[in-house]
């Protein structure tokens, strides 16, 4: 089965390690409370932004922002996509079919969870839902696909 959108298998381990580390780091970083102490507070270019929380929205401005979270999100998303869409050791059409199946179920599960959260979480805590929604589909897909591949790879050898 020839597929042209998958990354080479050798990227799998490195992206996996990077994904786990940066994902944990991002969660730890997000739970830090004291915003003033955040590291790497630098000037960044913003297409849309404001320099003050209650100020007017400006376009194409320079603004000061702690960029640690930007770096972590970049790392989580890039390594997550590479991890999710790199070739298996024995890539064949059944693996492609398992991948597609997992992707469909991950999408359904993700939107079910999002809908539930949208209907039953209100106010400030909903911001956490929005933050989580950035990664939930990718994370659910990776877990589901890895679980199904584990089941597939350990399927009983049925020889006579």
């Amino acid at each position, binding site marked *: 089965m020839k597929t042209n959108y998958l990354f080479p298998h050798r990227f799998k381990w490195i992206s996996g390690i990077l994904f786990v580390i940066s994902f944990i780091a991002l969660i730890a970083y997000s739970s830090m409370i004291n915003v003033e102490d955040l590291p790497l507070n630098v000037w960044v270019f913003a297409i849309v932004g404001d320099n003050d929380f209650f100020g007017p929205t400006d376009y194409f401005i320079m603004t000061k922002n702690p960029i640690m979270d930007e770096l972590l999100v970049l790392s989580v998303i890039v390594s997550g996509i590479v991890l999710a869409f790199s070739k298996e050791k024995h890539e064949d059409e059944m693996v492609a079919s398992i991948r597609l199946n997992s992707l469909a179920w991950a999408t359904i599960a993700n939107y079910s969870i999002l809908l539930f959260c949208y209907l039953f979480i209100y106010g400030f805590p909903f911001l956490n839902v929005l933050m989580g929604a950035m990664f939930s589909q990718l994370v659910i897909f990776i877990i589901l696909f890895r679980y199904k591949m584990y089941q597939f790879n350990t399927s009983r050898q049925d*020889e*006579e």
Partner: protein
Amino acid sequence: MKNNIKVQRAIFNLTQQDLAEKIGVSRQTINALEAGKYVPSTVLALKLSRLFSKSVNEIFDLEEGD
């Protein structure tokens, strides 16, 4: 869909691993095929047909409900 890959494989005296290598899939895929858990693509069906020198119809058969 039913298939008799297991029988054909026995005729040619191949293990699942041998057959997997010959048609370029993993051993688990052959296992799933024989167990009827996976319906192969046309390409894979034709590869099996060529390997066993049998027509696709002789290897695969429709079941009630297909």
